[in-house]
């Protein structure tokens, strides 16, 4: 019975019906994100992989065959393939050693390696550094990077001007880097003792 009722929407999905796709992506994106987060606890990487999976699916929508399975099974097949590719990519790259402190000096010029971001000590250090910032600085960083709000929306939310948002963001980024440096320096000293 379920299969019979699913068939028309499968056909519409295969035809690229925008409403069916919107509903499908809205339902599947959080599930895909959860799947990637379970594999690597790294929100940025999870977002990157979700984005890749969704665009792979869109580019290959013509290859979806309703008789071979549901759209859910199909997109999760693409996601599993992207996990395999990521594993292969990591295996081909040299192992990343060292803690976050080694990368703070080059934060302006090099991308932080995913392996460093996925370490528990990095997550703990960032949590701790963020909690030491002023509440306004914490709020602006969270609004910008976690909620993904624009400067205009943040300004509205915080009842300040857009210019003030930009300068607050600038100060917050500097403060976070300073706190991270302090944290990692004190951690290293503790380890030496």
């Amino acid at each position, binding site marked *: 019975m379920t299969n019979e009722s699913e068939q028309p929407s499968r056909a519409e999905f295969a035809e*690229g019906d*925008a409403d069916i*796709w*919107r509903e499908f*992506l*809205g339902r599947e*994106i*959080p599930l895909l*994100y*959860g799947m990637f*987060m379970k594999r690597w606890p*790294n*929100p*940025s990487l*999870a*977002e990157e992989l*979700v*984005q890749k999976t*969704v*665009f792979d*699916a*869109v*580019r290959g*929508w*013509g290859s979806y065959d309703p008789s071979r399975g549901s759209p859910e099974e199909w997109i999760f097949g693409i996601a599993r393939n992207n996990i395999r590719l990521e594993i292969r990519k990591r295996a081909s790259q040299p192992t990343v050693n060292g803690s976050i402190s080694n990368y703070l000096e080059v*934060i*302006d*010029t*090099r*991308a*932080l390696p995913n392996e460093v*971001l996925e370490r528990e000590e*990095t*997550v703990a250090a*960032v*949590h701790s550094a*963020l909690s030491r910032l002023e509440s306004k600085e914490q709020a602006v*960083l*969270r609004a*910008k*990077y*976690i*909620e*993904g*709000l624009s400067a205009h929306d943040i300004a509205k939310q915080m009842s300040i001007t857009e210019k003030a948002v930009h300068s607050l963001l600038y100060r917050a*980024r500097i403060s*976070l*880097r300073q706190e*991270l440096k302090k944290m990692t320096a004190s951690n290293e000293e503790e380890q030496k003792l």
Partner: protein
Amino acid sequence: MKREDDNLSYRNSVSRSDENISRLVKLTNGSNKPGKAFTESLIDNALGKLKKLKTARKQEIINVSRWEKTIGWAAMVAAGCGAVLAIVASTLLKINLFLEAVVILTVSFNWLTYLGEHTL
């Protein structure tokens, strides 16, 4: 020129730094769900791409059917010409056979007349 290069590298460093800070701050997001803004923007971009692909595919189908139509017409014209040629050739062949028969009959008749005249 040098100033432009400096400006460019400054902009690159700002975007790299911004990207790295973004990745660090996202680590503190306790939720196992993606941000609403991320999800909405991804859906909109994906649907935009899907629309473009659908339009391109429709155009491709139209182009293919145009080619098919042209080739179909060309094949029909060729088949028609072939049929006319076959009819004309067979008619000519029939006329040729008829003429041959007339010639043979005329020659035979003439011989018979000649022989008849000389033997009698």
